């Protein structure tokens, strides 16, 4: 029975390691490779810590298995060891983990700085946020500046808006201003490994770079009410050229409210906007 129990405690760590080993191939792993440079660095750190903790896990569980197995084979007339401790051992298992932990701590700092310290973002990028994302119960609202303009803190009349869809350019670092209209939310883009709380009364800049065009998830990671789970948006990452086209189209779309006066429409110049509004007007007639 003693042996059985020892094997019982040896079995579970092995099962844990097997599960971890097969997880990536079973899709029980990250939602795809990181699609941002910061995400890739976070993943690297994750694997580094995984290896370090894995070694410690195996080490301690093997030690536990060993001492249990040994204990289960003690004979009836044997005595337990009489020892109150060992100074040298204590020193070893204090200093080594301390060094490892400090190594982890200092290894992280640069990634963290990259992610959050504002100096790491070029002033040019910092001063030109591509969008303002406002969370509210239970949706995401995006506000983009009109092409060629800067995003103001206060909404401007020619700002462009979208709900539950955030369009971003690929291949360059972008800054987003994160806000909330009501309670606390959290901007979580799992494929980019980016997360930032949206705190009431604060506007928090978030920056990252998307490396690949595609559609990604944007979900809420901070409990915000009963609809927390359904606060979902899509991040659509486009190559630079397509992104500019998109912005232009969005601008036209948002400027064409169907009531554009003839002269103003002309002043806007030829192009789709005028035709669009004209056709809208004609439809209304």
């Amino acid at each position, binding site marked *: 029975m003693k042996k059985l129990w020892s094997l019982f405690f040896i079995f579970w760590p092995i099962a844990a390691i097997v599960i971890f080993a097969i997880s990536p191939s079973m899709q029980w792993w990250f939602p795809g490779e990181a699609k941002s440079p910061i995400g890739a660095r976070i993943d690297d750190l994750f694997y580094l810590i995984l290896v370090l903790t894995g070694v410690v896990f195996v080490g301690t569980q093997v030690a536990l298995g060993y001492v249990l197995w040994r204990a289960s084979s003690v004979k009836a007339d044997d005595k337990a060891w009489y020892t109150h401790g060992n100074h040298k051992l204590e020193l070893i298992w204090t200093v080594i983990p301390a060094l490892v932990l400090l190594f982890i701590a200092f290894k992280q700092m640069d990634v963290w700085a990259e992610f959050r310290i504002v100096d790491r973002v070029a002033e040019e990028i910092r001063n030109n946020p591509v969008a303002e994302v406002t969370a509210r119960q239970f949706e995401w609202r995006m506000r983009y500046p009109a092409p060629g303009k800067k995003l103001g803190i206060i909404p401007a009349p020619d700002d462009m808006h979208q709900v539950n869809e955030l369009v971003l350019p690929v291949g360059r670092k972008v800054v987003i201003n994160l806000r909330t209209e*009501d309670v606390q939310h959290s901007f979580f883009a799992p494929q980019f490994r980016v997360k930032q709380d949206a705190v*009431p009364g604060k506007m928090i800049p978030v920056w990252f770079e998307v490396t690949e065009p595609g559609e990604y998830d944007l979900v809420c990671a901070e409990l915000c009410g009963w*609809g927390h789970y359904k606060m979902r948006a899509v991040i659509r990452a486009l190559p630079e050229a397509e992104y500019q086209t998109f912005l232009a189209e969005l601008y036209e779309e948002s400027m064409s409210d169907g009531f554009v006066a003839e002269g103003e429409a002309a002043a806007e110049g030829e192009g789709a906007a005028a035709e669009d509004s004209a056709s809208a007007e004609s439809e209304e007639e």
Partner: protein
Amino acid sequence: MATIEPTASGLSAHDHAGHSDAYRIGFVRKYIFSTDHKIIGIQFLITTLLMLMVGGALALGVRWQLAYPDSPMPFIGPWLFPQQGGKITPEFYTMLFTMHATVMTFLVVIPILAGAFGNFLIPLMIGADDMAFPKLNMFSYWFMWPAIFFFGLSMADPNAGPAAGWTAYPLLSALPQAAPGSQIAQTWWLLGLTCVGISSMMGSINYLTTIINMRAPGLTMFRLPLTIWAMFITAILQAFALPVLTAAGFMLVADRALGTCFFIPAGIIVNNADPTVGGGQPLLWQHLFWFYSHPAVYIMLLPAMGMVSDMLSTMCRKPVFGYRPMVYSMITIAGLGFIVWGHHMFTSGMNPMIGMTFMVSTLMIALPSAIKTFNWLATIWGGKPQFNTVFLNCVAFVSMFVVGGLSGIFMASVPTDVYFHDTYFIVAHFHYILFGATLFGVFGAIHYWFPKMFARKMSEGLGQLHFLLTFIGFNGTFFPMHMLGIGGMPRRYADPYIHPYLEHFLPMNQLMTWSAMLMGFAQFILLFNFLYSIKFGKKVGRNPWNANTLEWAAPSPPPHGNFEQVPLCYHGPYEYSHPDWNGRDYLMQTEESMEKVLAGQTSDAPQKEATT
């Protein structure tokens, strides 16, 4: 000596039979409004065990929703939600996990450690006749009931139960418009929180005073069993951290009821209500809350660490390895515990420089935990344990604590925490600590000290069965959560599967729910074993485990006043298996020496270094 068998030899030197029953008292004052620390401890124990069942039931509700979001809840679903065809509504789901966490933290883990075992063990293990303030002690138990009442009221609110999670972040918790559950239910919840706070506060003052002032002659601080050290350090944490939470709770109540704006900034429009006037800062709540609730994590762990150290030593018939390092590491945990709260807020938008500081302090707090783990392993190493329920639970504690401790490293490192914050990874982490470590420690402690409470042993077969099922169910429930977390599944989602990247986790969640049901079912075995053994367990003497500490020198169950005469303490609590001893492998703290005074023993005890 090969086996552990009941014996009353521990106090044979000073056995004064028939001395204790002079004290007579009515039923109500003896068993209900009792001022006897043992009765209060048992009251706490039974109350918290019942609350454990309540909290477990709430968790099963959560698990049901995550496994079968489209199916009606079995048994009570049709009765609770007739309009939804018996399906759990998202409002109800938020209430479920809010109350699960609340009940488990404030009504189970904290009071079962400090309230039940702290109360029962402190006076016995230090050789005192009772707590320093018996009436305060009684109040500390009876303040649990208003808390239970308020929490119950908040849960039963017809609008919806409290919906802000156990962390109750404003503004969700501050503005009644923010959620159906943030109406009156949230105020009741905060009042409940205040009451448990008062209860723990009274307890902690009492423990500190008792441990400092009422130790038996000869029982110096460094002869205290590690359980008492742990309780002492826990009480310090509670005494200094808890007022902060209580103050924060009052501030939030004031925000809700009196129109103050501690946590409410200006111009917030929630649910189309009028804009708030504000001037407050929601992050303030997070700082205040975690200033308490991070030390609270150690409040929920340290006593179990202490008890496990004692139990392992006794079971292995071997002194605790590195007694002083164990004490110092607990002190370090407590000290660092006060400066790590910010690691709950890495993504909250606080100053990123502070984030770095908190990261370093948080990683450093892993160090004393590592030292303790190695010392436990070394305590088992070369020991001669019986593989009984107590020992198995303690080993599970160590094994699971390793998992929970290591997964904590991922969260302590800020960049990886950016990804793992508020995902199931953190849920896995703290369940490995709070259940995997603390509750297995508690299960062991229940089996270990039960004979002292009721002079009977709990059934060994049922105990092992309970352990086996709980351990399997526990790992089946919580281990896959690591995978969910790596997969990016956020916590507190009523229906995660509307997100395409999470859809494929449904089968895993179903497996977890079945495991959770197994685990829930297993707790009935514990409850049955506990209640059955009070009446029908095997009768044992005062020292069934052949242990050394002072409580085993008292009669079982200890009478009013605990000891027949003031116990004298001659040495530390871990004298097992000395190579020179024959016939018996333990030397109780009340016994001066085995055959001759052991060489090398520090002996600042009441002199008398003679041989028996």
